[in-house]
Protein backbone atom coordinates (compact mmCIF):
# COMPACT_ATOMS: atom_id res chain seq x y z
CA UNK A 1 0.00 0.00 0.00
CA UNK A 2 1.47 3.30 -1.03
CA UNK A 3 1.02 6.37 1.15
CA UNK A 4 -0.01 9.63 -0.50
CA UNK A 5 2.57 12.39 -0.05
CA UNK A 6 2.07 14.42 3.13
CA UNK A 7 0.12 17.69 3.03
CA UNK A 8 2.79 19.51 5.01
CA UNK A 9 4.26 20.11 8.44
CA UNK A 10 2.28 21.79 11.20
CA UNK A 11 3.72 23.68 14.17
CA UNK A 12 1.58 24.50 17.21
CA UNK A 13 2.01 27.63 19.34
CA UNK A 14 0.46 28.79 22.61
CA UNK A 15 0.56 32.53 21.90
CA UNK A 16 -0.59 34.76 19.05
CA UNK A 17 2.72 36.67 19.05
CA UNK A 18 4.69 33.46 18.62
CA UNK A 19 2.58 32.65 15.56
CA UNK A 20 3.10 36.12 14.08
CA UNK A 21 6.87 35.79 14.64
CA UNK A 22 6.85 32.32 13.06
CA UNK A 23 4.97 33.60 9.99
CA UNK A 24 7.50 36.43 9.61
CA UNK A 25 10.42 34.00 9.94
CA UNK A 26 8.94 31.60 7.37
CA UNK A 27 8.26 34.41 4.90
CA UNK A 28 11.79 35.72 5.43
CA UNK A 29 13.15 32.24 4.73
CA UNK A 30 11.38 32.31 1.37
CA UNK A 31 8.29 30.18 2.05
CA UNK A 32 5.36 30.96 -0.24
CA UNK A 33 2.89 28.10 0.39
CA UNK A 34 2.00 28.46 4.03
CA UNK A 35 -1.16 28.89 6.07
CA UNK A 36 -1.63 30.13 9.63
CA UNK A 37 -4.57 29.27 11.91
CA UNK A 38 -5.86 31.09 14.95
CA UNK A 39 -8.96 31.23 17.16
CA UNK A 40 -9.45 34.95 16.53
CA UNK A 41 -8.35 37.51 13.92
CA UNK A 42 -4.67 38.56 14.08
CA UNK A 43 -4.21 41.52 11.70
CA UNK A 44 -0.38 41.53 12.17
CA UNK A 45 -0.10 37.89 11.09
CA UNK A 46 -2.36 38.54 8.09
CA UNK A 47 -0.10 41.43 7.12
CA UNK A 48 2.98 39.22 7.48
CA UNK A 49 1.31 36.67 5.20
CA UNK A 50 0.71 39.41 2.64
CA UNK A 51 -3.09 38.92 2.58
CA UNK A 52 -5.21 41.78 1.32
CA UNK A 53 -8.91 42.11 2.08
CA UNK A 54 -9.41 44.74 -0.63
CA UNK A 55 -11.00 42.30 -3.14
CA UNK A 56 -13.96 41.94 -0.74
CA UNK A 57 -14.58 45.67 -1.10
CA UNK A 58 -14.21 45.62 -4.89
CA UNK A 59 -16.67 42.74 -5.17
CA UNK A 60 -19.17 44.61 -2.98
CA UNK A 61 -18.75 47.80 -4.99
CA UNK A 62 -19.21 46.04 -8.34
CA UNK A 63 -22.24 44.08 -7.13
CA UNK A 64 -23.77 47.20 -5.59
CA UNK A 65 -23.36 49.11 -8.85
CA UNK A 66 -24.86 46.21 -10.79
CA UNK A 67 -27.80 45.94 -8.37
CA UNK A 68 -28.46 49.67 -8.62
CA UNK A 69 -28.40 49.59 -12.41
CA UNK A 70 -30.65 46.53 -12.47
CA UNK A 71 -33.22 48.08 -10.10
CA UNK A 72 -33.27 51.49 -11.78
CA UNK A 73 -33.40 49.93 -15.24
CA UNK A 74 -36.25 47.60 -14.28
CA UNK A 75 -38.28 50.43 -12.73
CA UNK A 76 -37.71 52.63 -15.79
CA UNK A 77 -38.56 49.93 -18.34
CA UNK A 78 -41.73 48.88 -16.50
CA UNK A 79 -42.97 52.42 -15.88
CA UNK A 80 -42.19 53.79 -19.34
CA UNK A 81 -42.71 50.80 -21.65
CA UNK A 82 -44.42 47.79 -20.07
CA UNK A 83 -47.13 49.37 -17.93
CA UNK A 84 -47.30 53.15 -18.37
CA UNK A 85 -49.85 54.79 -16.06
CA UNK A 86 -50.80 58.41 -16.61
CA UNK A 87 -51.20 60.00 -13.18
CA UNK A 88 -52.45 63.54 -13.70
CA UNK A 89 -50.11 64.08 -16.65
CA UNK A 90 -46.94 63.45 -14.63
CA UNK A 91 -43.94 62.21 -16.63
CA UNK A 92 -43.70 58.44 -17.02
CA UNK A 93 -39.98 58.51 -16.33
CA UNK A 94 -40.42 59.90 -12.79
CA UNK A 95 -36.91 58.85 -11.85
CA UNK A 96 -36.81 60.33 -8.32
CA UNK A 97 -39.53 57.87 -7.28
CA UNK A 98 -37.40 54.99 -8.60
CA UNK A 99 -34.54 55.90 -6.27
CA UNK A 100 -35.82 54.26 -3.04
CA UNK A 101 -35.88 50.78 -4.59
CA UNK A 102 -32.61 51.46 -6.44
CA UNK A 103 -30.97 52.34 -3.14
CA UNK A 104 -32.38 49.33 -1.29
CA UNK A 105 -31.51 46.84 -4.02
CA UNK A 106 -27.97 48.28 -4.34
CA UNK A 107 -27.37 47.72 -0.62
CA UNK A 108 -28.92 44.26 -0.82
CA UNK A 109 -26.57 43.24 -3.65
CA UNK A 110 -23.50 44.83 -2.07
CA UNK A 111 -24.08 43.14 1.31
CA UNK A 112 -24.84 39.73 -0.16
CA UNK A 113 -21.83 39.99 -2.49
CA UNK A 114 -19.47 41.09 0.31
CA UNK A 115 -20.40 38.08 2.41
CA UNK A 116 -20.70 35.48 -0.35
CA UNK A 117 -17.61 36.88 -2.08
CA UNK A 118 -15.68 36.64 1.17
CA UNK A 119 -16.61 32.95 1.41
CA UNK A 120 -15.67 32.36 -2.23
CA UNK A 121 -12.28 34.09 -1.81
CA UNK A 122 -11.70 31.89 1.23
CA UNK A 123 -12.56 28.75 -0.73
CA UNK A 124 -15.51 28.02 1.58
CA UNK A 125 -17.74 26.16 2.11
CA UNK A 126 -15.84 22.91 1.91
CA UNK A 127 -16.56 19.63 3.62
CA UNK A 128 -13.04 18.75 4.63
CA UNK A 129 -9.48 20.02 4.62
CA UNK A 130 -6.21 18.21 5.37
CA UNK A 131 -5.42 20.73 8.15
CA UNK A 132 -8.07 18.97 10.26
CA UNK A 133 -5.86 15.84 10.23
CA UNK A 134 -3.20 17.66 12.26
CA UNK A 135 -2.78 16.53 15.87
CA UNK A 136 -4.62 18.75 18.36
CA UNK A 137 -6.07 20.92 15.59
CA UNK A 138 -9.47 21.08 17.34
CA UNK A 139 -7.87 23.67 19.62
CA UNK A 140 -7.33 26.01 16.67
CA UNK A 141 -10.91 27.12 17.32
CA UNK A 142 -10.31 27.63 21.03
CA UNK A 143 -6.87 28.61 22.33
CA UNK A 144 -4.00 27.38 20.11
CA UNK A 145 -2.22 28.85 17.09
CA UNK A 146 -0.89 26.81 14.16
CA UNK A 147 1.46 27.33 11.24
CA UNK A 148 1.38 24.98 8.26
CA UNK A 149 4.21 24.77 5.74
CA UNK A 150 2.76 23.10 2.67
CA UNK A 151 4.44 20.30 0.72
CA UNK A 152 3.54 22.26 -2.44
CA UNK A 153 6.30 24.71 -1.67
CA UNK A 154 9.60 24.18 -3.56
CA UNK A 155 11.45 24.60 -0.24
CA UNK A 156 9.64 21.59 1.25
CA UNK A 157 11.59 18.53 2.35
CA UNK A 158 10.34 16.39 5.26
CA UNK A 159 13.41 16.57 7.51
CA UNK A 160 14.54 20.10 6.81
CA UNK A 161 11.06 21.58 7.16
CA UNK A 162 10.46 19.93 10.53
CA UNK A 163 13.83 21.20 11.70
CA UNK A 164 13.03 24.74 10.53
CA UNK A 165 9.73 24.68 12.41
CA UNK A 166 11.36 23.33 15.58
CA UNK A 167 13.74 26.29 15.40
CA UNK A 168 10.72 28.59 15.95
CA UNK A 169 10.23 27.03 19.43
CA UNK A 170 6.69 25.68 18.98
CA UNK A 171 4.86 23.39 21.43
CA UNK A 172 5.02 20.59 18.89
CA UNK A 173 5.66 19.86 15.22
CA UNK A 174 3.83 17.12 13.34
CA UNK A 175 3.48 15.90 9.80
CA UNK A 176 0.00 16.30 8.29
CA UNK A 177 -1.29 13.62 5.94
CA UNK A 178 -3.13 14.78 2.85
CA UNK A 179 -5.89 12.15 2.81
Amino acid at each position, binding site marked *: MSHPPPFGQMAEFAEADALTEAVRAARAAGWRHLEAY*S*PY*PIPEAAEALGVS*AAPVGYIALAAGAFGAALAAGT*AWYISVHLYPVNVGGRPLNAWPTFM*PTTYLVAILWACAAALIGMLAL*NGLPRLSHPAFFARGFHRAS*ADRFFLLLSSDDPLYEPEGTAQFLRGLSPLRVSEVRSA
Partner: protein
Amino acid sequence: MSDVTAPVAAAALRPGAWGFRLSVAFCAAGVVVLAASVAAVLVRGVGVWGNNIPHVWGFDLIGYAWWIGIANAASLFAAILVLRRHGLRTAVNRFAEAAALAAILAAAFYPILHLGRAELFLWTLPYPSYTGLWPQFGSPLVWDFWGIMSHVVVTSLFWFIGLIPDLATMRDAAATRGRIGAARAYGLLALGWRGSVAHWHRHQAAYRLVAAMVLPLLLWAQTVVALEFATTLVPGWHQARLPLHVVVTGLPSGLGVVLALAAVLRHALSLQRFVDREDMNLLAQLTATAGLVAALAYAHELLVGFAEEDPTTRAALSARVLGPGAPAYWGAVALSAALPQLLWSGWARRRTLVLVAVGTLAAAGVWLDRWSLVVDGLLRDHLVGIGPAYSPSLAEWGLLGGTLALFALVLLLFGRLVPAVSMYETRHEESEAEMEEEER
Protein backbone atom coordinates in the same frame (compact mmCIF):
# COMPACT_ATOMS: atom_id res chain seq x y z
CA MET B 1 -3.71 29.86 28.56
CA SER B 2 -6.94 27.93 28.69
CA ASP B 3 -9.90 28.97 26.57
CA VAL B 4 -11.78 31.76 28.33
CA THR B 5 -14.93 31.10 26.37
CA ALA B 6 -15.29 27.41 27.30
CA PRO B 7 -18.29 28.18 29.60
CA VAL B 8 -20.16 29.75 26.67
CA ALA B 9 -19.75 26.64 24.53
CA ALA B 10 -20.67 24.50 27.53
CA ALA B 11 -23.87 26.51 28.05
CA ALA B 12 -24.96 25.71 24.51
CA LEU B 13 -24.16 21.99 24.79
CA ARG B 14 -25.71 21.43 28.23
CA PRO B 15 -29.12 19.77 28.27
CA GLY B 16 -31.90 22.27 28.97
CA ALA B 17 -33.09 22.80 32.54
CA TRP B 18 -36.76 22.51 33.46
CA GLY B 19 -37.21 26.28 33.39
CA PHE B 20 -36.03 26.34 29.81
CA ARG B 21 -38.28 23.45 28.80
CA LEU B 22 -41.25 25.09 30.44
CA SER B 23 -40.57 28.36 28.61
CA VAL B 24 -40.23 26.56 25.29
CA ALA B 25 -43.51 24.69 25.89
CA PHE B 26 -45.25 27.94 26.79
CA CYS B 27 -43.95 29.74 23.69
CA ALA B 28 -44.73 26.75 21.47
CA ALA B 29 -48.34 26.93 22.71
CA GLY B 30 -48.31 30.61 21.75
CA VAL B 31 -47.07 29.70 18.28
CA VAL B 32 -50.05 27.35 17.96
CA VAL B 33 -52.29 30.34 18.71
CA LEU B 34 -50.39 32.23 16.01
CA ALA B 35 -50.99 29.42 13.53
CA ALA B 36 -54.72 29.43 14.37
CA SER B 37 -54.94 33.23 13.96
CA VAL B 38 -53.11 33.09 10.63
CA ALA B 39 -55.31 30.21 9.43
CA ALA B 40 -58.44 32.19 10.39
CA VAL B 41 -57.33 35.12 8.19
CA LEU B 42 -56.28 32.91 5.30
CA VAL B 43 -59.47 30.85 5.30
CA ARG B 44 -62.11 33.42 6.24
CA GLY B 45 -60.40 36.58 4.94
CA VAL B 46 -59.65 39.89 6.65
CA GLY B 47 -63.30 40.07 7.69
CA VAL B 48 -62.28 38.25 10.87
CA TRP B 49 -60.40 41.41 11.86
CA GLY B 50 -61.94 44.56 13.32
CA ASN B 51 -60.81 46.67 10.33
CA ASN B 52 -63.46 48.81 8.65
CA ILE B 53 -63.77 52.12 6.81
CA PRO B 54 -62.04 54.43 7.74
CA HIS B 55 -59.86 52.06 9.83
CA VAL B 56 -58.44 50.06 6.91
CA TRP B 57 -55.29 49.56 8.98
CA GLY B 58 -55.40 48.32 12.54
CA PHE B 59 -53.33 45.74 14.37
CA ASP B 60 -51.79 44.68 11.06
CA LEU B 61 -49.90 47.93 10.52
CA ILE B 62 -49.41 48.63 14.25
CA GLY B 63 -47.74 45.25 14.64
CA TYR B 64 -45.69 45.66 11.49
CA ALA B 65 -44.38 49.13 12.33
CA TRP B 66 -43.74 48.09 15.93
CA TRP B 67 -41.76 44.92 15.12
CA ILE B 68 -39.79 46.71 12.41
CA GLY B 69 -38.95 49.40 14.97
CA ILE B 70 -37.62 46.78 17.39
CA ALA B 71 -35.63 45.08 14.64
CA ASN B 72 -34.22 48.38 13.45
CA ALA B 73 -33.08 49.66 16.80
CA ALA B 74 -31.58 46.27 17.72
CA SER B 75 -29.59 45.92 14.49
CA LEU B 76 -28.65 49.59 14.53
CA PHE B 77 -27.19 49.01 17.97
CA ALA B 78 -25.35 45.84 16.86
CA ALA B 79 -23.93 47.50 13.73
CA ILE B 80 -22.72 50.54 15.65
CA LEU B 81 -20.99 48.29 18.19
CA VAL B 82 -19.22 46.40 15.39
CA LEU B 83 -18.07 49.62 13.75
CA ARG B 84 -16.90 51.21 16.98
CA ARG B 85 -14.99 48.07 18.03
CA HIS B 86 -16.48 48.64 21.42
CA GLY B 87 -15.79 46.12 24.18
CA LEU B 88 -19.51 45.78 24.79
CA ARG B 89 -20.08 44.28 21.38
CA THR B 90 -18.39 41.04 22.33
CA ALA B 91 -21.17 40.42 24.76
CA VAL B 92 -24.38 41.91 23.50
CA ASN B 93 -24.12 42.33 19.76
CA ARG B 94 -24.71 38.64 19.10
CA PHE B 95 -28.09 38.62 20.76
CA ALA B 96 -28.95 42.11 19.60
CA GLU B 97 -28.57 40.68 16.08
CA ALA B 98 -30.60 37.61 17.04
CA ALA B 99 -33.34 39.82 18.49
CA ALA B 100 -33.39 41.86 15.27
CA LEU B 101 -33.71 38.69 13.21
CA ALA B 102 -36.54 37.30 15.37
CA ALA B 103 -38.34 40.66 15.27
CA ILE B 104 -38.18 40.75 11.47
CA LEU B 105 -39.59 37.22 11.32
CA ALA B 106 -42.48 38.42 13.48
CA ALA B 107 -42.90 41.59 11.41
CA ALA B 108 -42.99 39.67 8.12
CA PHE B 109 -46.37 38.10 9.00
CA TYR B 110 -48.28 41.37 9.03
CA PRO B 111 -47.78 42.92 5.58
CA ILE B 112 -48.42 39.59 3.87
CA LEU B 113 -51.60 38.88 5.85
CA HIS B 114 -52.99 42.40 5.57
CA LEU B 115 -53.12 42.05 1.79
CA GLY B 116 -56.35 40.12 2.27
CA ARG B 117 -55.44 37.64 -0.42
CA ALA B 118 -52.05 36.68 0.95
CA GLU B 119 -51.26 34.24 -1.86
CA LEU B 120 -51.13 37.16 -4.29
CA PHE B 121 -48.23 38.90 -2.54
CA LEU B 122 -46.17 37.74 -5.52
CA TRP B 123 -47.78 40.56 -7.47
CA THR B 124 -45.41 43.03 -5.79
CA LEU B 125 -42.53 41.27 -7.57
CA PRO B 126 -41.74 42.44 -11.10
CA TYR B 127 -42.23 39.32 -13.19
CA PRO B 128 -43.95 38.72 -16.54
CA SER B 129 -47.39 37.29 -15.83
CA TYR B 130 -50.43 36.39 -17.95
CA THR B 131 -52.30 39.36 -16.49
CA GLY B 132 -49.79 41.77 -18.04
CA LEU B 133 -49.69 43.56 -14.69
CA TRP B 134 -46.50 45.20 -13.41
CA PRO B 135 -45.76 46.85 -10.05
CA GLN B 136 -45.66 50.65 -9.90
CA PHE B 137 -42.28 51.78 -8.65
CA GLY B 138 -43.64 55.15 -7.58
CA SER B 139 -45.65 53.49 -4.79
CA PRO B 140 -44.37 53.35 -1.20
CA LEU B 141 -45.97 49.90 -0.91
CA VAL B 142 -43.58 48.62 -3.57
CA TRP B 143 -40.68 50.36 -1.80
CA ASP B 144 -41.79 48.67 1.39
CA PHE B 145 -41.67 45.23 -0.23
CA TRP B 146 -38.04 45.78 -1.28
CA GLY B 147 -37.25 47.37 2.06
CA ILE B 148 -38.41 44.41 4.14
CA MET B 149 -36.87 41.92 1.69
CA SER B 150 -33.46 43.60 1.87
CA HIS B 151 -33.81 43.93 5.63
CA VAL B 152 -34.55 40.21 6.09
CA VAL B 153 -31.77 39.02 3.76
CA VAL B 154 -29.07 41.40 4.97
CA THR B 155 -29.82 40.94 8.68
CA SER B 156 -29.82 37.15 8.41
CA LEU B 157 -26.56 37.15 6.42
CA PHE B 158 -24.98 39.59 8.87
CA TRP B 159 -25.94 37.42 11.82
CA PHE B 160 -24.91 34.15 10.18
CA ILE B 161 -21.53 35.35 8.91
CA GLY B 162 -20.67 36.64 12.37
CA LEU B 163 -21.62 33.26 13.75
CA ILE B 164 -19.56 31.02 11.42
CA PRO B 165 -16.31 31.01 13.48
CA ASP B 166 -18.27 30.31 16.66
CA LEU B 167 -20.08 27.44 14.95
CA ALA B 168 -16.63 26.02 14.18
CA THR B 169 -15.79 26.29 17.89
CA MET B 170 -19.06 24.52 18.73
CA ARG B 171 -18.20 21.79 16.21
CA ASP B 172 -14.84 21.16 17.87
CA ALA B 173 -16.25 21.42 21.40
CA ALA B 174 -19.00 18.92 20.56
CA ALA B 175 -16.51 16.55 18.91
CA THR B 176 -14.22 16.69 21.98
CA ARG B 177 -17.19 15.71 24.16
CA GLY B 178 -17.94 12.79 21.81
CA ARG B 179 -21.22 14.32 20.58
CA ILE B 180 -20.71 13.27 16.96
CA GLY B 181 -24.24 14.13 15.77
CA ALA B 182 -24.04 17.63 17.20
CA ALA B 183 -20.50 18.04 15.83
CA ARG B 184 -21.71 17.11 12.32
CA ALA B 185 -24.64 19.55 12.52
CA TYR B 186 -22.46 22.41 13.75
CA GLY B 187 -19.75 21.40 11.26
CA LEU B 188 -22.07 21.64 8.27
CA LEU B 189 -23.26 25.07 9.40
CA ALA B 190 -19.67 26.23 10.03
CA LEU B 191 -19.04 25.70 6.27
CA GLY B 192 -15.63 24.14 6.90
CA TRP B 193 -14.21 27.14 8.79
CA ARG B 194 -10.67 26.30 9.88
CA GLY B 195 -9.55 29.59 11.40
CA SER B 196 -7.03 30.46 8.69
CA VAL B 197 -5.50 33.87 9.41
CA ALA B 198 -6.09 34.88 5.79
CA HIS B 199 -9.75 33.85 6.07
CA TRP B 200 -10.12 35.83 9.31
CA HIS B 201 -8.75 38.91 7.58
CA ARG B 202 -11.34 38.80 4.79
CA HIS B 203 -14.08 37.74 7.21
CA GLN B 204 -13.53 40.81 9.36
CA ALA B 205 -13.39 43.10 6.33
CA ALA B 206 -16.70 41.76 5.00
CA TYR B 207 -18.34 41.82 8.43
CA ARG B 208 -17.45 45.46 9.06
CA LEU B 209 -18.34 46.48 5.53
CA VAL B 210 -21.81 44.98 5.92
CA ALA B 211 -22.21 46.61 9.34
CA ALA B 212 -21.50 49.97 7.69
CA MET B 213 -24.07 49.30 4.97
CA VAL B 214 -26.71 48.06 7.42
CA LEU B 215 -26.98 51.51 9.02
CA PRO B 216 -28.47 53.39 6.03
CA LEU B 217 -30.59 50.36 5.13
CA LEU B 218 -32.23 50.35 8.56
CA LEU B 219 -32.99 54.05 8.59
CA TRP B 220 -34.52 53.70 5.17
CA ALA B 221 -36.64 50.63 6.00
CA GLN B 222 -38.37 52.46 8.84
CA THR B 223 -38.68 55.64 6.78
CA VAL B 224 -40.55 53.76 4.05
CA VAL B 225 -43.08 52.44 6.57
CA ALA B 226 -43.73 56.04 7.65
CA LEU B 227 -43.95 57.25 4.05
CA GLU B 228 -46.88 54.89 3.49
CA PHE B 229 -48.76 57.05 5.98
CA ALA B 230 -47.30 60.38 4.92
CA THR B 231 -48.34 59.99 1.27
CA THR B 232 -52.04 59.65 2.20
CA LEU B 233 -54.24 62.73 2.54
CA VAL B 234 -55.33 61.89 6.10
CA PRO B 235 -54.60 65.07 8.11
CA GLY B 236 -53.06 63.22 11.04
CA TRP B 237 -50.63 61.36 8.77
CA HIS B 238 -49.84 63.74 5.92
CA GLN B 239 -46.71 65.19 7.49
CA ALA B 240 -43.12 65.50 6.35
CA ARG B 241 -41.86 64.91 9.89
CA LEU B 242 -43.45 61.44 10.13
CA PRO B 243 -40.44 59.39 8.91
CA LEU B 244 -38.15 61.02 11.45
CA HIS B 245 -40.76 60.60 14.18
CA VAL B 246 -41.19 56.88 13.50
CA VAL B 247 -37.43 56.19 13.31
CA VAL B 248 -36.64 58.10 16.50
CA THR B 249 -39.55 56.94 18.66
CA GLY B 250 -38.75 53.35 17.62
CA LEU B 251 -35.35 53.45 19.33
CA PRO B 252 -36.55 52.82 22.93
CA SER B 253 -38.34 49.64 21.80
CA GLY B 254 -35.30 47.92 20.30
CA LEU B 255 -32.87 49.05 22.98
CA GLY B 256 -35.39 48.20 25.71
CA VAL B 257 -35.82 44.69 24.31
CA VAL B 258 -32.05 44.18 24.04
CA LEU B 259 -31.64 45.48 27.61
CA ALA B 260 -34.30 43.14 28.96
CA LEU B 261 -32.79 40.22 27.02
CA ALA B 262 -29.29 40.97 28.27
CA ALA B 263 -30.56 41.03 31.86
CA VAL B 264 -32.43 37.74 31.44
CA LEU B 265 -29.68 35.88 29.54
CA ARG B 266 -27.04 37.04 31.99
CA HIS B 267 -28.81 35.18 34.75
CA ALA B 268 -30.30 32.28 32.82
CA LEU B 269 -27.02 31.29 31.13
CA SER B 270 -24.66 32.51 33.91
CA LEU B 271 -22.94 34.96 31.58
CA GLN B 272 -22.12 37.55 34.28
CA ARG B 273 -18.47 37.37 33.35
CA PHE B 274 -19.10 38.18 29.68
CA VAL B 275 -21.88 40.73 30.15
CA ASP B 276 -20.52 42.57 33.17
CA ARG B 277 -21.94 45.43 35.22
CA GLU B 278 -20.24 48.04 33.00
CA ASP B 279 -21.94 46.60 29.92
CA MET B 280 -25.33 46.66 31.62
CA ASN B 281 -24.73 50.24 32.78
CA LEU B 282 -23.89 51.41 29.29
CA LEU B 283 -26.85 49.59 27.75
CA ALA B 284 -29.23 51.00 30.36
CA GLN B 285 -27.93 54.53 29.82
CA LEU B 286 -28.32 54.12 26.07
CA THR B 287 -31.96 53.12 26.60
CA ALA B 288 -32.46 56.17 28.81
CA THR B 289 -30.90 58.37 26.13
CA ALA B 290 -33.16 56.84 23.49
CA GLY B 291 -36.07 57.76 25.77
CA LEU B 292 -34.81 61.36 25.91
CA VAL B 293 -34.53 61.54 22.14
CA ALA B 294 -38.04 60.11 21.81
CA ALA B 295 -39.24 62.78 24.26
CA LEU B 296 -37.76 65.43 21.94
CA ALA B 297 -39.66 63.88 19.02
CA TYR B 298 -42.94 64.02 20.99
CA ALA B 299 -42.26 67.64 21.99
CA HIS B 300 -41.54 68.50 18.36
CA GLU B 301 -44.79 66.80 17.31
CA LEU B 302 -46.81 68.91 19.74
CA LEU B 303 -44.97 72.14 18.95
CA VAL B 304 -45.23 71.81 15.17
CA GLY B 305 -48.74 70.38 15.29
CA PHE B 306 -50.26 73.07 17.49
CA ALA B 307 -48.20 76.11 16.50
CA GLU B 308 -47.68 75.73 12.76
CA GLU B 309 -50.26 73.42 11.20
CA ASP B 310 -53.62 74.31 9.66
CA PRO B 311 -56.89 73.96 11.64
CA THR B 312 -57.74 70.51 10.17
CA THR B 313 -54.41 69.02 11.24
CA ARG B 314 -54.64 70.77 14.60
CA ALA B 315 -58.05 69.23 15.20
CA ALA B 316 -56.70 65.78 14.30
CA LEU B 317 -53.73 66.14 16.64
CA SER B 318 -55.92 67.55 19.35
CA ALA B 319 -58.20 64.50 19.19
CA ARG B 320 -55.15 62.25 19.54
CA VAL B 321 -53.48 64.18 22.34
CA LEU B 322 -56.34 65.72 24.34
CA GLY B 323 -59.44 63.89 23.11
CA PRO B 324 -60.37 60.22 23.02
CA GLY B 325 -56.83 59.25 21.97
CA ALA B 326 -55.20 60.74 25.07
CA PRO B 327 -54.67 57.46 27.02
CA ALA B 328 -52.67 55.85 24.20
CA TYR B 329 -50.70 59.03 23.42
CA TRP B 330 -49.72 59.86 26.98
CA GLY B 331 -49.23 56.18 27.75
CA ALA B 332 -46.64 56.08 24.98
CA VAL B 333 -44.92 59.22 26.31
CA ALA B 334 -44.91 57.88 29.86
CA LEU B 335 -43.65 54.37 29.06
CA SER B 336 -41.22 54.93 26.20
CA ALA B 337 -39.86 58.41 27.01
CA ALA B 338 -40.35 59.10 30.74
CA LEU B 339 -39.99 55.65 32.33
CA PRO B 340 -36.51 54.91 30.86
CA GLN B 341 -35.23 58.04 32.66
CA LEU B 342 -35.35 55.88 35.79
CA LEU B 343 -32.25 54.16 34.42
CA TRP B 344 -30.06 57.17 35.17
CA SER B 345 -30.18 55.98 38.77
CA GLY B 346 -27.47 53.49 39.70
CA TRP B 347 -29.86 51.75 42.09
CA ALA B 348 -32.26 50.93 39.27
CA ARG B 349 -29.48 49.74 36.98
CA ARG B 350 -28.32 47.16 39.52
CA ARG B 351 -31.76 45.51 39.79
CA THR B 352 -32.32 42.86 37.12
CA LEU B 353 -36.07 42.98 37.61
CA VAL B 354 -36.13 46.76 37.14
CA LEU B 355 -34.10 46.46 33.94
CA VAL B 356 -36.40 43.77 32.54
CA ALA B 357 -39.52 45.72 33.51
CA VAL B 358 -38.33 49.08 32.15
CA GLY B 359 -37.03 47.52 28.93
CA THR B 360 -40.25 45.63 28.26
CA LEU B 361 -42.49 48.55 29.19
CA ALA B 362 -40.50 50.89 26.93
CA ALA B 363 -41.25 48.51 24.05
CA ALA B 364 -44.92 48.41 25.09
CA GLY B 365 -44.93 52.23 25.13
CA VAL B 366 -43.75 52.33 21.54
CA TRP B 367 -46.58 49.94 20.65
CA LEU B 368 -49.01 52.48 22.17
CA ASP B 369 -47.46 55.22 20.03
CA ARG B 370 -48.05 53.10 16.92
CA TRP B 371 -51.66 52.59 18.03
CA SER B 372 -51.99 56.34 18.54
CA LEU B 373 -50.67 56.94 15.03
CA VAL B 374 -52.49 54.20 13.12
CA VAL B 375 -55.87 54.15 14.89
CA ASP B 376 -56.18 57.49 16.65
CA GLY B 377 -54.65 59.29 13.68
CA LEU B 378 -58.05 58.73 12.05
CA LEU B 379 -60.14 60.22 14.88
CA ARG B 380 -60.58 63.39 12.79
CA ASP B 381 -60.59 63.48 8.99
CA HIS B 382 -61.68 66.08 6.46
CA LEU B 383 -65.28 64.99 6.99
CA VAL B 384 -67.45 66.21 9.86
CA GLY B 385 -68.21 62.76 11.19
CA ILE B 386 -66.09 59.64 11.02
CA GLY B 387 -66.71 56.13 12.21
CA PRO B 388 -67.38 53.44 13.26
CA ALA B 389 -64.60 53.13 15.83
CA TYR B 390 -61.97 50.43 15.50
CA SER B 391 -61.95 47.57 17.92
CA PRO B 392 -59.54 44.67 17.45
CA SER B 393 -61.00 41.16 17.25
CA LEU B 394 -59.83 37.95 18.88
CA ALA B 395 -57.99 36.94 15.70
CA GLU B 396 -55.95 40.16 15.91
CA TRP B 397 -55.09 39.70 19.57
CA GLY B 398 -54.10 36.13 18.69
CA LEU B 399 -51.80 37.44 15.99
CA LEU B 400 -50.14 39.89 18.39
CA GLY B 401 -49.75 37.33 21.17
CA GLY B 402 -48.66 34.68 18.69
CA THR B 403 -45.90 36.80 17.15
CA LEU B 404 -44.69 37.66 20.66
CA ALA B 405 -44.50 33.93 21.41
CA LEU B 406 -42.70 33.28 18.13
CA PHE B 407 -40.18 36.03 18.95
CA ALA B 408 -39.55 34.56 22.39
CA LEU B 409 -39.32 31.00 21.02
CA VAL B 410 -36.76 31.95 18.36
CA LEU B 411 -34.66 33.74 20.98
CA LEU B 412 -34.91 30.84 23.44
CA LEU B 413 -33.68 28.43 20.77
CA PHE B 414 -30.89 30.81 19.71
CA GLY B 415 -29.87 31.19 23.34
CA ARG B 416 -29.68 27.43 23.73
CA LEU B 417 -28.28 26.15 20.46
CA VAL B 418 -25.77 28.78 19.42
CA PRO B 419 -23.29 30.66 21.59
CA ALA B 420 -25.12 33.60 23.13
CA VAL B 421 -22.05 35.82 23.13
CA SER B 422 -19.48 36.10 20.36
CA MET B 423 -16.72 33.75 21.50
CA TYR B 424 -13.99 34.80 19.11
CA GLU B 425 -14.39 38.45 19.96
CA THR B 426 -14.28 37.67 23.67
CA ARG B 427 -11.05 35.67 23.15
CA HIS B 428 -9.53 38.50 21.20
CA GLU B 429 -10.43 41.02 23.85
CA GLU B 430 -9.13 38.90 26.72
CA SER B 431 -5.81 38.35 24.94
CA GLU B 432 -5.48 42.10 24.43
CA ALA B 433 -6.25 42.73 28.09
CA GLU B 434 -3.60 40.17 29.08
CA MET B 435 -1.05 41.86 26.88
CA GLU B 436 -1.79 45.24 28.38
CA GLU B 437 -1.30 43.80 31.85
CA GLU B 438 2.05 42.30 30.87
CA GLU B 439 3.21 45.64 29.52
CA ARG B 440 2.34 47.25 32.83
